[in-house]
């Protein structure tokens, strides 16, 4: 299984979801190895082990790798990659044709250095790392000691496809988000191409929602039969006790928590907040998180003169996240495009009723959540007022949503994925 991030080192939902899926699979009896760009001190556990791409020299089966490599001539490798239209990165071709032939590869493996360097971040060298990750995928594929390859999001699709090529084993790609979610209509063509390449070369595609499946089919031209939907879940054991939290009598808190980027619709939250603010002053709005739109949101809020009722916390971690949920009375997720969106689950763990955008995958599994179109700020404001002014209704919504959540667990997701594996196992 190829991933890019893993708790506790996460920047978004991808790491959390990959972790949940891995656990769910293991609990369903699947033996699993999780590959990450770099280890960051993670050791894995008795359930599954972790391979760090920048340590591939350490893998115990390197002799098998070398053996496999030895049987393929350079020429063949070159041919392989030139017919794959997307594998044109010069780094990549060069790697297999000039600098890193089998002999040097052997040398590198025997020296104690990592084969290739990874940061596992999302920096400016991201694309290069994605290509390099592909090389690692190729090498691990030669090891050929697995039945299924599973790759999470576009960052790992090269690795997945490369591993499939070198091993001949079937590939599942797991779409947590598409470029259309991240960038709206202004997609990054390179990323789109990698996504499409992954989807086309996969034997099965898992989408985290029907919302996402629809995008895969309509925007990437993939046959609907090839795409299965497995919804994300939430780790229900996470809840800590609310630690001596003193809530102010009568005052309500409405929370936005997430990256402050176009995709998450923070601007719609600010506008809706203003409509509530004009009607009810006994409420505070909190925007927790950070992102490229933060300065604009602060300016807009200041312009609307809500500073006595609207607060920015910056990026929250650990206990502060839980504290924030525990303090809140309404959680709003106004995402413009949200493949899944796990945060409302977390809010529900703290009995916070939720208002979520219809443009989100999670709305498919929470029939009782209050739903809005992300752009409908008036409706959003009305629903916020409804929840802060009617405690019974708020409680009712939270309870019903929690009921909806009862059957949603990573083990169920794992079970579904296992069945998908069975259907394509050669």
């Amino acid at each position, binding site marked *: 299984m190829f991933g890019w991030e893993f708790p506790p080192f996460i920047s978004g939902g991808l790491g959390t979801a990959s972790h949940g899926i891995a656990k769910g699979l293991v609990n369903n009896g699947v033996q699993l190895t999780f590959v990450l760009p770099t280890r960051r001190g993670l050791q894995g556990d008795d359930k599954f082990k972790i391979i760090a791409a920048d340590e591939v020299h350490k893998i115990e089966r390197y002799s098998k790798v070398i053996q496999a490599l030895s049987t393929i001539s350079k020429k063949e490798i070159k041919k392989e990659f030139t017919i794959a239209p997307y594998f044109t990165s010069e780094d990549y071709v060069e790697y297999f044709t000039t600098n890193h032939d089998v002999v040097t590869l052997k040398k590198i493996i025997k020296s104690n250095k990592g084969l290739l360097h990874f940061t596992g971040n999302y920096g400016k060298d991201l694309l290069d790392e994605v290509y390099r990750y592909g090389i690692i995928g190729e090498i691990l594929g030669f090891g050929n000691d697995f039945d299924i390859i599973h790759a999470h999001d576009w960052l790992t699709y090269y690795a997945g496809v490369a591993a499939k090529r070198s091993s001949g084993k079937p590939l599942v790609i797991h779409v947590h988000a598409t470029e259309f979610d991240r960038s709206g209509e202004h997609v990054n063509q390179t990323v789109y191409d990698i996504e499409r390449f992954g989807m086309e070369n996969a034997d099965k595609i898992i989408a985290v929602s029907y919302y996402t499946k629809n995008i895969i089919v309509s925007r990437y031209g993939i046959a609907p039969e090839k795409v299965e939907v497995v919804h994300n879940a939430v780790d229900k054991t996470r809840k800590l006790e609310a630690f001596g939290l*003193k809530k*102010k009598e009568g005052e309500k808190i409405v929370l936005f928590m997430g990256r402050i980027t176009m995709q998450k619709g923070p601007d719609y939250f600010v506008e809706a907040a203003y409509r509530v603010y004009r009607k009810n002053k006994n409420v505070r709005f*909190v925007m927790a998180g950070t992102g490229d739109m*933060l*300065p604009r949101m*602060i*300016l*807009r809020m*200041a*312009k609307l*003169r809500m*500073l*006595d009722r609207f*607060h*920015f*916390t*910056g990026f929250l971690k650990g206990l*502060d996240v839980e*504290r924030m949920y525990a303090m809140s009375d309404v959680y709003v997720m106004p995402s413009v495009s949200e493949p899944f969106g796990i945060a409302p689950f977390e809010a529900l763990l703290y009995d916070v009723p939720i208002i979520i955008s219809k443009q989100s995958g999670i709305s498919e599994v929470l029939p009782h959540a209050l739903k809005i179109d992300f752009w409908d700020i008036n409706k959003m404001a009305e629903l916020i007022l409804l929840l802060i002014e009617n405690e019974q209704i708020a409680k009712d919504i939270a309870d019903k949503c929690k009921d909806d959540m009862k059957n949603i667990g990573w083990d169920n997701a794992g079970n579904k994925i296992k069945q998908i594996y069975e259907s394509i196992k050669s």
Partner: protein
Amino acid sequence: MISIVFYFQVHQPFRLRKDYTFFDIGHNHFYEDEEANRSILNKVAEKCYFPTNQMLLELINRYPGAFKVSFSISGVALEQFEKYNPYVLESFQKLAATGQVEFIAETYYHSLSFLFSKEEFKEQVKLQSEKVRQYFGQNPTTFRNTELIYNNDLAHFVEKMGFNTILAEGANQVLGWRSPNFLYQPVGSYKMNLLLKNYKLSDDIAFRFSNRAWEEYPLTADKFASWVHATAGNGELINLFMDYETFGEHQWAETGIFDFMRALPEAIFRHPDFQFITPGEAKNFYTPLAQIDVPYFVSWADLERDLTAWLGNPLQDAAIEKIYEIEKMVKATGDKDIIHTWRKLLTSDHFYYMCTKWFSDGDVHKYFNPYETPYDAFITYSNVMNDLIETVKEKSNEPVVA
């Protein structure tokens, strides 16, 4: 005789804790970064206040009755002297005792209160004057507003409060073709004397002194005196207004700024028609040459010399409107500590930190700014203000015991 007026601004804000977050609202009422305030004050004392006061004292003693300077020290700066380093206060008192130093009135909290609450403005000026009387034994008759912010209304207002001299920036939009080197009078005034900063000569010392790219670098006392002397025959009053931190802090000792200043009086006195006076003495030597009409606010900040360093972007406007909006509520508590805390939030620096114009003067803004971005400054300020509002509300709900 042609007179040189030195006026130095001394100010230190009470800086807020940058780690004051949303979660502190309603629980934590400690707003100030004591550690930063203490260490900055002590650093500036070491680099500027002590050595410069000592130098001025020596010059005053060398030229009895002839070398004079003036200061405006904000109330919040005086409070920090008391709190963190009383020796600084003592060294200013030594200067006061020479009789050759004038202490000028301003708003105690170095605030923009004149723009937002005349009542608060009046109270702050009174508080400041009391502090000057208490420490320096003078009854201030000269006024300068925060950052030399000035217009006609201000002049009239402080004239009614009993001041007879006021300082302002000799900005181009104020003077037009006229020279700053005369005594003026605010339009519509009878008694008020207006001194306008000669920003060219002032900034030669305050900003350009150590600039190696400047064609006049290095600036010597003789060279500067020759420029001052060149005004003979077409000027009466050279107003050199600057931040006191120019000496040793903005211009480090290594630049030679102290040697320059030490040599300056002698160089000036080489021309027999030149003397040093304090702002309040100007009216004894000169009659105002003309009335000056300043309908719009000017200041000494940035290239624009207007209010845009503190006001104009939504962060600044929202924050300052809100803080003045709660004035009545705050004062109604009658709680001295709360009122004092509120007033410290009026200090102009808080709004300066929220300035988003980072261009030509950006480096200056950044130098004085403890925050990484104006947004951070705004968020910290808002959090603190919200806690204060909560505190005030709780206080207002307490039953009044008759």
